[in-house]
């Protein structure tokens, strides 16, 4: 089977409905059996500006975005101007025939003649369906699912727009440019059993729900808002309280209160909002309250670029909060991993009785992928608190134990009283000025690192046994790094990829061999200073001399890496 990969960009102003076309086309492709990787690029405004919805698709596996464009569907002239340089050799522009474009291959569609204004995006779907050589019945079913509930008439209109545009394209190309047809036609592929289409944030939300999240507080902030909003959509069905707080400080303190009272609790935010939670994180550490924080990264400092992507908040999260206390930081590399690590985060928070962080970013948050359905029966949810029945009176919340973890009773569920304190405290939870107790309590808290280290997800390794080049990455860049490594392998180089889905704590034994074995180690990150490379150095004492860093707000692509390595 030959494989073909195409990159389809739909571009226009905010408010022109390009996300609708994009989602319909993505669904169609997945139902036809193709893989997709969606990248959304938008500005911090509601209307106007320049946005794109990019679907990279293939009949083979796929996990990264691409920079060149094979099919550019535009809603305005500006999009052509901004992206013409990115068109691949046979790249085609699809535009309204009223927009005049010169010197590049272009298909002008007379939308106005084919359909009404409202149905132009469905018409564009029809054009794309034909160009990509897709089974026409699939987008029709997709439309049916989307608009079916709105009644037969609405559905019929949509159906008509789709068919008319499909037919028009077929007729037009038959005469005019059959070669474009071939280039854009996707190879046939097996229909797969139904897959979920999820973006990173949806996967996090579903993962949290599966894990048993019961309380979620947030203050809106791009690109994290949709995690809480998605959970809220199912709050009634799943028995969750979702609360928009008055500010981020309230959000983290609410979550701590809710967790203390027994609910597995979540806070979602971005870097600037997280900065405000710093004191609260320290409170979770001191009071040993489990709480999960999901942070959608975007470029800083300060307000920065609110709708773009970056991996710049790793050090912020690692060192947030005054004083020393244990924590864990997860960083999923794919949409599927978003789902699973959301669950892991709740587990770790409960087992270590403290804050656990999950770092995602705008790229992953908005990136739709096709995911094999999760088996509901296999999913475990978190158990909060400890059974009160064996507890002695008076119950001591911070009893000193071998591994630093004390039985955690929940207030109000027994006659035992639960005392938590942000001051340094004695085993019973009351504040103390006994400085020997202080030392014991610091040691108790730090001991919990042993448990966290036992449960660490080791980095995944892919590639040759003895690579000349080892690419190290974390979080959302995984797909691009793996694809770049594949390209290098094809060019005859021995390459390995080490991807960290958990970036703290690090257990050097898990990976130091890889670093030692490789002739050259290159860290790949979306930030300006190589924060994770620094962390690896701290954990291993090894210097990582070469870094590929991107910090213009766009995701790292395989091309970014290959260009930097001058291949």
């Amino acid at each position, binding site marked *: 089977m030959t494989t073909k990969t195409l990159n389809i960009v739909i571009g226009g102003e905010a408010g022109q409905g390009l996300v609708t076309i994009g989602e319909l086309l993505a669904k169609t492709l997945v139902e036809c059996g193709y893989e997709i990787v969606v990248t959304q690029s938008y500005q911090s405004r509601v209307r106007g500006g320049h946005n794109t919805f990019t679907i990279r698709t293939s009949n083979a596996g796929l996990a990264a975005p691409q920079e060149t464009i094979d099919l550019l569907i535009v809603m305005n002239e500006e999009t052509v101007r901004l992206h013409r340089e990115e068109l691949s050799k046979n790249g085609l522009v699809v535009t309204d025939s009223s927009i005049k474009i010169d010197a590049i291959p272009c298909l002008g569609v007379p939308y106005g003649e084919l359909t009404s204004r409202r149905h132009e995006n469905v018409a564009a779907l029809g054009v794309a369906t034909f160009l990509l050589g897709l089974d026409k019945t699939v987008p029709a079913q997709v439309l049916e699912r989307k608009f079916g509930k709105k009644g037969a008439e609405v559905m019929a209109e949509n159906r008509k727009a789709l068919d008319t545009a499909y037919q028009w394209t077929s007729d037009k190309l038959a005469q005019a440019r059959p070669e474009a047809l071939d280039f854009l036609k996707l190879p046939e592929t097996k229909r797969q059993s*139904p897959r*979920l*289409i999820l973006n990173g944030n*949806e996967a996090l939300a*579903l993962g949290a*729900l*599966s894990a*048993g999240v*019961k*309380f979620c*507080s947030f203050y809106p902030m791009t690109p994290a808002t949709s995690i809480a909003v998605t959970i809220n959509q*199912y*709050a009634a*069905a*799943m028995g*969750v*309280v979702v*609360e928009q*707080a*008055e*500010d981020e*400080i*309230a*959000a983290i*303190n*609410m979550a*701590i*209160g*809710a*967790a*203390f*009272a*027994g*609910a597995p*609790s979540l806070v979602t935010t971005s870097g600037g909002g997280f900065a405000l939670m710093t*004191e609260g994180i320290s*409170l979770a550490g001191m*009071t040993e309250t489990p709480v999960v924080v999901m942070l959608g990264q975007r470029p800083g400092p300060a307000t920065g670029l609110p709708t773009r992507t970056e991996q710049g908040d790793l050090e912020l999260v690692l060192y947030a909060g005054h004083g020393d206390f244990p924590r864990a930081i997860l960083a999923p590399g794919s949409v599927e991993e978003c789902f699973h690590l959301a669950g892991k985060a709740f587990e770790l928070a409960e087992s270590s009785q403290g804050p656990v962080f999950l770092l995602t970013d705008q790229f992953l948050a908005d990136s739709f992928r096709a995911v094999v*359905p*999760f088996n*509901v*029966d296999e*999913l475990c*949810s978190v158990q*909060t608190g400890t059974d009160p029945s064996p507890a002695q009176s008076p119950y001591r919340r911070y009893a000193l134990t071998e591994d630093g973890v004390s039985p955690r009773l*929940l*207030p*109000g569920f*027994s*006659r*035992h*009283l*639960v*005392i*938590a*304190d*942000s001051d340094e405290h004695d085993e019973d*939870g*009351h*504040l103390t000025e006994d400085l020997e107790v202080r030392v014991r309590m610091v040691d108790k808290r730090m001991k919990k690192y042993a448990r966290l280290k036992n449960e660490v997800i080791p980095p995944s390794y892919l590639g040759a046994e003895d690579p000349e080049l080892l690419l190290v990455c974390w979080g959302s860049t995984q797909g691009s790094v793996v694809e770049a490594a594949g390209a290098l392998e094809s060019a005859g180089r021995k390459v390995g990829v080490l991807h960290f889905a958990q970036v703290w704590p690090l257990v050097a034994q898990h990976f130091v061999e890889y670093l030692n074995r490789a002739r050259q180690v290159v860290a790949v990150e979306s930030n300006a200073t190589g924060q994770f490379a620094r962390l690896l150095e701290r954990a291993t004492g090894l210097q990582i001399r070469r870094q590929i860093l991107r910090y213009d707000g766009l995701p790292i692509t395989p091309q970014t890496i290959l260009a930097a390595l001058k291949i």
Partner: protein
Amino acid sequence: MSTLQDFGQYETAWCPGCGNFAILQAVKKALVASGLSPHQLLFVSGIGQAAKTPHYLNANVFNGLHGRALPLATGAKLSNPALTVIVESGDGCNYGEGGNHFLAAIRRNINLTMLVHNNQVYGLTKGQASPTSQKGFVTKAQPGGVLAQPFSPLAVAVAMRAGFVARSFSGYEEHVTAMVTQAIAHQGFSLVDILHPCVSFNKLNTFTWYKERCEKLPDDYSPTDWEAAMKTAVKWGDTIPIGLIYKNEQPPYEENFPVLKKGPLAKQGVDKKALQDIFSRYL
């Protein structure tokens, strides 16, 4: 059912003569009067002298961060509405650092009882101005006297039509007990601002100063008349009215969440059937 003894007797870190002692005693009495047992109660406090109070009585306690008692209590209440949640902290904690949460708690009308030990000064940090300090009040940190107008928690609470707005004075222990008992009984957000002397750092608003001014509301005062309440709430001068100033019965916030009708969140598992349905929406 409980007795005073159930709430224990602890050594405190307060100065002799401090108004906090009377408030602590009144709170215990109110708990007994409310028929609450220690394990049904959750006290949430911030940081300050007042915020130490929960350490001095038997109950579930979360002594949190300076200024952040209200959101923490809100989270706890929304996690387990069966708990009687009482927020207890100082004027600096609640109206200074925590001002934004005060506004939000009133808007939510969440069923918490908020007891503010208002000594018009930052006690624990040794005597800086608090938001309720009088204009001109001289401290080490304000050698030229306080320059801003004092915050009137009652005026703001009544203006926002808070559920239950009362003032009391530590010099009248029975009055404090009565106000706290009523506040606990009130279903919705309730505020009791309790004036009390700080013998160490507030030499202006002394026990006598309060005693001379605090005057109980007349028996025929109607706390449901908003206009009258507004006028009463801003009174602060030769007489300072104490009592239940305003009351407004509205369903408490937590009743808006059908899921909470099923009991505390900690006891609600994951409905796998519902989860499967949700997954299928993404097919």
